[in-house]
């Protein structure tokens, strides 16, 4: 059972009554909460949750409640900008800006060929934008260089699903979360990244005692604090843990042999890959006591209903896809998929990153079509009325490969839409240097940090100012109606893309415009026909139906007019060669299999169990950099804070970055709470205050990645390494090495100095001065003694967000 009640959360600021409420969907995280936008005098003045929407029944998270402030921010971009000869961005007309982009695109294509124009979009846009990007990119520009910031947050979801099941599409849904007996949140801090879904879980748990909650996380997060079992593993050991658990489950006989025999291939090789992971070895490598491993394996092995979710703790770690494949393996060998309360639920990191994958704005061809399969490209050619030979075959290039290509001068134009890579990409110094060397278009509502390298800036519309659909983490397609017009001079991403296509004169093989639609709804209708017969079939969806039913979960067809709660109920997986979205990759190296190699596997509609060989993180702590660094999100901010920093409430709660340091490590370094420290890695350094506690384990530090302003040094990605997972090419943000450096003055005591006078002089607390110098309280100081003085010490206080505890 889902929610038992509704609660309409609301955040409105208006004088007088709201004129109207407009149907919409939250544009923050991937949970996909239904909402309505408050409009007064043609201005957005607030938001409330949609009480009828099954995902949230009226609830909103703190970021969702506050997302509307950005719409009215006084620093909205209202005109295109072009960088002049003096290096300054100056206002320009739309015609001048678009003409420049078109000219540059044509020049680049002429000089460097098709794979010289890159479009890097976002997971926060609309399905219709992504479909248009895919069509322009593949059939217009003929480029492989279509990627998005979804590479950073959810690429691993796609690739693990392709590996195991033949197609994208997370098998389980929130309906299964409502029914399951055991819920494992693997690298998924749901209490801070999906507050409404976490409340949904906890409401049921408080009421019924279920689900038994297993949380796998190296940090003691708010989610972990609510767990029945918290597996606080060492960084970079997801695969050893899963291999150890799977081995224990197999040895204890808790596998479904009939299911394995009839519905999977590859069991023996998979089993061989976990054989070395005895409980002792697993405990030693992961740091998890054997007793806890036994508890976990018993819970996972004996339950008849299991849902496992994953998010960035898995996706952004070393061995990301292998870990997620191991989770798929676990569900398959237990036969816990395709039935109520069962299945992997690999999440997405953004409100619509799933849509970008589904409709081909990134990765494979639209509707889960295999770019290595001639039949699939022939289908696309027919649907788009273009010549098949003009459609590029083969896999796309992810953003980290694109950075390398830029460094080698192979890319001439980089079009950045709705994302802020100079804050969100790892190894920021390298990214900045690369983007400075190429023609960059930045399409965004605000002047983000990435604008610093832009040659052209296009002002884009925000949520509420455009119509379209999004796909959340559990395959639900949600509708967003347009509430207000964007400010004058501002256009939607959709309009900009259509304008580009028209100016480039992209045509089909009969000479008609390649882009034949002119509204998002018309685009969606075209997309429907492209999706027909494919795993993500949306032929049964209309905008009207989406609004009437408050979202529909694909596939939605004539046979399933109200959508599909879970995939693979018929235990038929999309692994037949001509159905599969991919011929899969070598699980260790990431090399795409050839069609003949795939054919030799003979999956033929069965799921594929892959061997899960452990490969440690490339960078590990050393003497010079003795700490693990991990990065992540706060409950109060979204990504690079383009929107959330413009909410006075959210910005006041969490205005600055900080570093979480374990209390024992702080003691070893004699750090005081809030002390400004320098965190240095082989890439760079930042200076942030220390938040000392027990959230991180000894030897690990955490820095939130939201703070990337060019003013100050707080950007976590100044520190991170830009290694990627071999299969998904998702960067491994979660494991870098760093050191903590104290930033202190020295004060040599003179006659008359006391500890108190010194503390007063430097405006720090006496207790901090004592602690910083490891003095005892009654230590007699002496003239000539030199004391360390912390440069600053301002406590980092962040309130917890736990309203559900009062509600449940």
């Amino acid at each position: 059972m889902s929610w038992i009640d509704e609660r309409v959360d609301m955040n409105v600021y208006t004088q007088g009554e709201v004129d109207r409420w407009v149907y919409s969907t939250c544009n923050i995280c991937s949970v996909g909460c239904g909402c309505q936008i408050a409009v007064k005098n043609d201005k957005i003045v607030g938001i409330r949750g949609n009480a009828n929407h099954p995902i949230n029944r009226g609830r909103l998270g703190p970021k969702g409640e506050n997302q509307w402030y950005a719409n009215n921010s006084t620093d909205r971009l209202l005109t295109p900008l072009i960088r002049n000869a003096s290096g300054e961005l100056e206002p320009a007309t739309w015609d001048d800006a678009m003409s420049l982009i078109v000219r540059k695109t044509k020049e680049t294509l002429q000089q460097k060929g098709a794979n010289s124009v890159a479009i890097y979009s976002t997971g926060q846009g609309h399905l219709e934008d992504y479909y248009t990007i895919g069509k322009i990119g593949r059939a217009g520009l003929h480029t492989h260089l279509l990627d998005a910031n979804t590479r950073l947050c959810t690429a691993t979801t796609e690739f693990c699903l392709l590996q195991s099941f033949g197609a994208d599409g997370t098998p389980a849904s929130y309906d299964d979360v409502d029914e399951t007996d055991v819920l494992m949140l693997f690298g998924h801090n749901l209490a801070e990244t999906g507050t409404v879904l976490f409340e949904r879980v906890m409401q049921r748990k408080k009421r019924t005692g279920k689900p038994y909650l297993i949380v796998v996380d190296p940090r003691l997060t708010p989610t972990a604090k609510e767990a029945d079992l918290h597996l606080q593993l060492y960084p970079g050991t997801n695969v050893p843990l899963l291999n150890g658990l799977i081995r224990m489950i197999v040895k204890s006989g808790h596998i479904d042999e009939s299911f394995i025999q009839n519905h999977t291939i590859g069991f023996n090789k998979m089993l061989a890959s976990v054989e070395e992971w005895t409980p002792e070895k697993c405990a030693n490598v992961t740091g998890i006591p054997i007793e806890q491993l036994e508890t976990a394996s018993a819970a996972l092995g004996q339950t008849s209903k299991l849902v496992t979710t994953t998010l960035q703790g898995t996706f952004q770690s070393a061995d990301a896809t292998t870990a997620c494949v191991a989770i798929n393996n676990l569900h398959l060998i237990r036969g816990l998929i395709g039935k109520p309360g069962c299945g992997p639920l690999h999440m997405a990191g953004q409100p619509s990153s799933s849509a970008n994958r589904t409709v081909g704005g990134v990765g494979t061809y639209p509707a889960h079509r295999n770019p290595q399969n001639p039949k699939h490209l022939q289908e696309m050619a027919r649907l788009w009325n273009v010549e098949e030979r003009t459609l590029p075959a083969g896999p796309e290039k992810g953003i980290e490969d694109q950075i390398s290509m830029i460094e080698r001068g192979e890319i001439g134009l980089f079009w950045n839409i709705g994302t802020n890579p100079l804050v969100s990409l790892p190894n920021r110094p390298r990214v900045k240097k690369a983007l400075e060397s190429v023609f960059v278009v930045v399409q965004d509502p605000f002047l983000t940090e990435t604008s610093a390298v832009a040659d052209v800036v296009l002002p884009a519309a925000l949520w509420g100012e455009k119509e379209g659909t999004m796909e959340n983490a559990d395959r639900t397609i949600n509708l967003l109606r347009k509430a207000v017009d964007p400010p004058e001079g501002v256009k939607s991403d959709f309009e900009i893309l259509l304008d580009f296509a028209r100016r480039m004169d992209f045509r089909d093989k009969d000479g008609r415009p390649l882009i034949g639609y002119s509204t998002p709804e018309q685009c969606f209708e075209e997309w429907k026909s492209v999706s027909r017969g494919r795993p993500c079939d949306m032929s049964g969806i209309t905008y009207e139906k989406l609004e009437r039913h408050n979202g529909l979960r694909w596939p939605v067809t004539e046979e399933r007019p109200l959508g599909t709660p879970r995939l693979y109920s018929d235990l038929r997986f999309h692994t037949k060669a001509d159905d599969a979205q991919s011929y899969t990759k070598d699980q260790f190296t990431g090399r795409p299999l050839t069609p003949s190699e795939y054919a030799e596997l003979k999956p033929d509609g069965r799921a594929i169990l892959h061997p899960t060989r452990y490969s440690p993180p490339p960078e590990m702590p050393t003497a010079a950099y003795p700490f693990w660094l991990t990065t992540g999100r706060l409950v109060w901010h979204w990504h690079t804070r383009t929107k959330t920093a413009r909410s006075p409430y959210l910005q006041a709660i969490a205005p600055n970055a900080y570093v979480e340091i374990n209390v024992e490590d702080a003691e070893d370094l004699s750090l005081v709470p809030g002390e400004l420290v320098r965190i240095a890695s082989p890439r760079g350094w930042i200076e942030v205050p220390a938040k000392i506690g027990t959230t991180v384990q000894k030897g690990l530090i955490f820095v939130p990645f939201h703070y990337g302003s060019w003013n100050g040094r707080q950007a976590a990605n100044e520190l991170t390494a830009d290694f990627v997972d071999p299969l998904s090419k998702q960067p491994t943000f979660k494991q870098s090495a760093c050191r903590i450096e104290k930033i202190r003055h020295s004060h040599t005591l003179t006659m008359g100095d006391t500890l108190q006078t010194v503390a007063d002089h430097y405006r720090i607390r006496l207790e901090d001065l004592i602690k910083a110098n490891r003095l005892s309280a009654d230590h007699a100081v002496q003239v000539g003694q030199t004391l360390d003085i912390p440069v600053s010490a301002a406590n980092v206080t962040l309130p917890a967000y736990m309203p559900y505890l009062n509600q449940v």
Partner: protein
Amino acid sequence: MAELTITFEAVWASAIQVERAIREADNPLAKLCVTVLSEQVQQLERLLPKLADEGAALEVGKREISIVYHDDELIDSYFRSWLRHLKWSEDPFEPEAERLLTVLEEMKSNLKEAARLLEDRFGYDAVKYVIPFFYMPIHH
């Protein structure tokens, strides 16, 4: 196919050279490189005899060719990542790795040349799904 044979032989020689030079390195990225290079060498050793047959159809060697190219794409990425790691960790092997990178770049040039020869011989439509687009001559 003589020209093709010479070109792929050069690729094979480069792959062996790099694989031997780095096979003892224990960093995970280096191990990935070694695994990929070993596979590439193995596939080239299967391919070369097939290229000796002047009249051979693409079908005969298509699998090996595809694997060789896809392995090269991976090597390019993994080796450059490993090189960054060597720099960051001030590893004494770094200068040698820089030199080996030039060998890999030469390999890539040879593979691009081979792609041109294969396209000339068999036509674009035949090689489209065999050779990654990034190795194909630029078509305008």
